[in-house]
């Protein structure tokens, strides 16, 4: 087998908590406690687990939003965890993150054009504004939005449209690895389906690798090639999608699957 695009080995991200107060013992929260997995070119790996299991911290550590305590993550031959912020910066184009609400942390006064042009200029992917506009229009179309939405502002869009724009902002950089952290959980059921289909289609067409982080087992089954089940900071089971759903080995995976409310089958 070829070398994976990303190989995570024994990743640990610990946080110290409860430091305040005289004589108070410092305690350590082991959010991620020895996690290993790999993602190949064009592959979608899902990290599935319940709240607090550490799945989001894995994604945030890989994008330098949190600092790894120990472990390595070799991306394209380099350990990205050992890079300084300056060394990591050029790699940000290759490793992009999609959040639950892409607008929560961004400036509401920027138009969609300004928001999408920003990373293009930062990474020097375009020479001038007209080239940027061309690329933005093409990418918006790719995610099912009109090119005219460019001149509008975030508050003018519904939740589903915002996530489409968030996805456009990531895909416009043609990254090699997308880390999607609960990208559909804030959306209504009918809109979730649209965005899941969109992510799946974009992933297939572009061949980008994806780490899909979610608590939603249905979404995970829909989009992944392989699945890693996380529980209390560690991976209890990793396997092909069908193996995880049809012959789960770990007791926790079985408990998780047994908890899904069953939908009565429609008689066609």
């Amino acid at each position, binding site marked *: 087998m070829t070398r994976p695009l990303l190989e995570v080995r024994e990743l640990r991200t610990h946080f110290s908590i409860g430091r305040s107060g005289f004589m108070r013992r410092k305690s350590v929260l082991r959010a991620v406690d020895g996690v290993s997995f790999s993602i190949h070119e064009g592959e979608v790996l899902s990290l599935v687990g319940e709240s607090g299991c550490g799945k989001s911290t894995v994604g945030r550590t890989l994008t330098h939003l949190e600092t790894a305590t120990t472990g390595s993550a070799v991306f394209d031959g380099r350990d990205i965890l050992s890079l300084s912020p300056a060394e990591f910066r050029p790699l940000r184009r290759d490793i992009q993150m999609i959040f639950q609400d892409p607008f929560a942390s961004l400036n509401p006064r920027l138009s969609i054009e300004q928001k999408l042009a920003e990373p293009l200029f930062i990474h020097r992917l375009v020479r001038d504004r007209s080239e940027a506009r061309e690329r933005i229009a093409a990418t918006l179309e790719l995610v099912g939005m009109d090119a005219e939405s460019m001149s509008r502002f975030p508050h003018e869009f519904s939740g589903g449209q915002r996530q489409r724009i968030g996805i456009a902002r990531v895909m416009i950089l043609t990254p090699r690895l997308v880390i999607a952290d609960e990208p559909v959980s804030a959306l209504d059921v009918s809109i979730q389906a649209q965005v899941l289909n969109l992510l799946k289609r974009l992933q297939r067409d572009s061949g980008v690798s994806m780490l899909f982080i979610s608590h939603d087992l249905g*979404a995970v089954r829909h989009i992944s090639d392989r699945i890693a089940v996380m529980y209390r900071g560690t991976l209890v089971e990793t396997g092909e999608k069908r193996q995880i759903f049809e012959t789960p080995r770990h007791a926790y995976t079985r408990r998780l699957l047994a908890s899904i*409310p069953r939908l009565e089958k429609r008689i066609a």
Partner: protein
Amino acid sequence: MALLDIRNLDLTIARGSELLPVVQGVSLAVEENETLGIVGESGCGKSLTALAVMGLLEGSAARIAGGSIHFQGRNLLALSPEERRRVMGDQMAMIFQEPMTSLNPVYRVGDQIKEAVLQHRSMSGRQAHDRALELLELVRIPDPARRIDSFPHQMSGGQRQRVMIAMALACDPKLLIADEPTTALDVTVQKEVLELVRSLQARTGMSIVLISHDLGVISETCDKVAVMYRGRIVEQASTSTLFSNMSHPYTLGLLGSIPATDHDVEWLDAIPGRVPTLDEAVPGCAFHPRCFAARGSCRTADPDAAAVSPAHIVRCHFPQGSSS
């Protein structure tokens, strides 16, 4: 006689000088010991309908514009605020999605349950304490004698929702309205809470209105289902009829939107477009811009609710399936 009987309920929200309809002509009945599910996406009016039943619309922007709500044969909308308060929390109670916003963070959970008891029952502090303990046991909080002195933040999300259920059950209500009670919970905890609610119902014989966006939760918990879209009930039937013979294109779309966990699907049958905002007027059927079956009359005439089979009501010009 149904325990709860809602007839032609209309709710409006004032936007400037205009009154925008948010719930239109909703009719629902809940029998004793029955569980009714209301399913729909955000903004469809499911929560506002529940708040109207509870008499809690004051906290929202919506007002009742028409219709009636009968509970045990009495029209709740004709009661004085004083009489209404006596019914609320005593004979009917409600639980919400996020228990932390309903629980007071600075009071011990035991004291909050006691308060709920003493609101409607005259008993001594000792008796109320014993009742609170009994309720915590009932909702299967481990080590209730110790947990009765806990503060909400010392409990997990699942335990807090159990405390909310204990408070709701304080006076043995005839009707429990649960608005997305497990949406904020993990799937394994959700399963435990739904099982708890079902076993409590078997024990007390109460009726339940369960509001959820999750067809799976509805399917596992409810006897009958009402599907709401943009303020109207578009389909209503027993759970088994609904799932074996879905007729409204919106209900079919909701089901098609859910990724299966027991088999692989290449692409989801997503509903195109989005729910129109309140101030966007849609002529004809409100769902027609997103509907795969829409044609001629759908664009001009709002369909009436009609029975496609006994006790299976659909609001659609062209209901799908064999029963049409």
